[in-house]
């Protein structure tokens, strides 16, 4: 029923160049969290560190009382059974059909009979809407289908923590919307802990319970969705509203001169767009981790931007793209 992931002081560098340092955050059990960040800030590296594919230089990742970076290779393989990971392109095994791909973890890890395996695989394929494509090879289906097949394979061992590496990259807006709905529905059905790494602001604004933002090698902010969406912190505000004005530049962070020039020119930040409603599960029943809209703002005495939480969950494109 979902497991908490506690990350403390995590630091990673490659060949002397730090990727990020001192990341501290807690993924609350059973909730959906999104990790955002400009390109090249090591979001995928963070995911791989979280499942122990990469060893951090320092810091701890504690899951059910076990500290992943300190575990031996064999213990890691045990802990990894708690995880389901959806890789960017699905990472399906190219030589196996979709059916065999999804059945693979069951055949390797359980002693179930083929008919039991068939039942589980069919159930997961139904969940992601891939019935009928079982006997195709990964090379023969579209990118969106590969992602959903990868998701079905990640779900097959009933993981407690599900990680998504850019689920919306390379998908059209309609498929992205379907995938987002699928993520919310899965969270409702399985109660697992979700972490989504993405660039897509629409996903970040409407899907998660919590948002984190990696910027300039550290965690700029991590907290409830409403906290970040109502934040006036320059980096958070710039990124979540996809603006050019702010500390993030085209190449990397802007230097002090540019920022000063911007301030002198008297560029005024556009007002914060309204906070949209969270995407509800498709059957209308609430998720366990769901909180009523506006609760965080009320509890913390923050006035949400005008027009927030009004009865439509998707922001108008004009509100997001400026």
């Amino acid at each position, binding site marked *: 029923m979902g497991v908490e992931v506690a990350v403390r002081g995590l630091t990673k560098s490659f*060949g002397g160049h730090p990727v990020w340092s001192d990341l501290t955050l807690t993924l609350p059990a059973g909730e959906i969290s999104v990790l955002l960040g400009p390109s090249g800030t090591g979001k995928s590296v963070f995911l791989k560190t979280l499942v122990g594919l990469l060893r951090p230089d320092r810091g701890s990742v504690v899951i059910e009382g076990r500290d992943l970076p300190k575990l031996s290779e064999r213990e890691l393989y045990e802990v*990894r059974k708690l995880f389901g990971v959806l890789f960017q392109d699905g990472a399906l*095994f*190219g030589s196996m059909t979709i059916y065999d791909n999804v059945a693979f973890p069951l055949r*390797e890890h359980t002693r179930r009979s083929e008919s039991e395996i068939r039942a589980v695989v069919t159930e997961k394929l139904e969940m992601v809407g891939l019935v009928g494509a079982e006997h195709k090879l990964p090379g023969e289906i579209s990118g969106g289908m590969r992602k959903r097949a990868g998701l079905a394979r990640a779900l097959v*061992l009933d993981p407690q923590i599900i990680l998504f590496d850019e689920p919306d990259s390379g998908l059209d807006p309609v498929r992205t919307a379907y995938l987002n709905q699928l993520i919310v529905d899965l969270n409702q059905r399985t109660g697992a802990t979700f972490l989504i790494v993405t660039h897509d602001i629409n996903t970040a604004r409407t899907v998660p319970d919590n948002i984190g933002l990696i910027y300039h090698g550290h965690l700029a902010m991590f907290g409830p969705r409403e906290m970040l969406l109502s934040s006036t912190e320059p980096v958070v505000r710039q990124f979540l509203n996809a603006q050019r004005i702010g500390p993030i530049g085209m190449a990397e962070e802007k230097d002090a001169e540019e920022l000063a020039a911007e301030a002198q020119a008297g560029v005024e930040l556009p007002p914060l767009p309204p906070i949209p409603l969270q995407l509800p599960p498709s059957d209308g029943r609430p998720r366990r981790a769901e909180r009523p809209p506006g609760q965080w703002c009320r509890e913390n005495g923050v006035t949400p931007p005008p027009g927030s939480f009004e009865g439509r969950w998707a922001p108008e494109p004009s509100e997001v793209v400026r």
Partner: protein
Amino acid sequence: MSAPVSAVRHTGEFFAFCLDTLRGLGRRPVQVREFVQQAWFISSVSILPAALVSIPFGAVIALQLGSLVRQLGAQSFTGAASVLAVVREAGPIVTALIIAGAGGSAICADLGARKIREELDAMQVLGIDPIHRLVVPRVLASMLVAVLLNGLVSVVGVTGGYAFNVVLQGGTPGAYLASFQALGQLPDLLVGEVKALLFGAAAALVASHQGMTAKGGPKGVGDAVNRSVVITFMLLFALNFVVTAVYFQVVPQKGS
């Protein structure tokens, strides 16, 4: 990082990888299916080239020896020399080159492609060790095929030498066959097979290691295959020298 440090580091990583594979040998369940598939695959890409290479190899040895031996008046030893050369040296080397060139490059390309498509990461996340699941069966398959291929190369090479000597050089069939036992002995064949076994293991280990550490997209896979073939060749010739030197020290030679 300076070049010598990086070279030492890569060598160290390769040895660690070999140890991991060795440990994987004892782990259950044994991947029989993958082993059979790989053995079938490696033999299917290597049998024909091995046979085609060993025929001219046997013939060249016969040709080289033919005129020399006639000048010395020792025609009756042509068969002995040819057997010695093919079984002791040419067999294992031809086997090694074919295994490294045909089998090793295919293994490296396959694992490299899986690496850059994140298939290996996905496998690890699903709780499956790629060394146990993929590398161990490939190394075992490569060893088995190398041993069998060495037998094939020896037979084809000696037959080629025989045909060349008898048909083209006018040698006597009886003398060729009768002299087989003059210099050669059973340990020659055994050491040939031991060499083939080692070469098969080395080729598959280097290919797997290079494939699994490929990075940088499709170009990285190409580079890995290239490196794997070059490294394997160098390693095989060095190994061959060591095994041969040890063999001459340990096993007394005929006629000495």
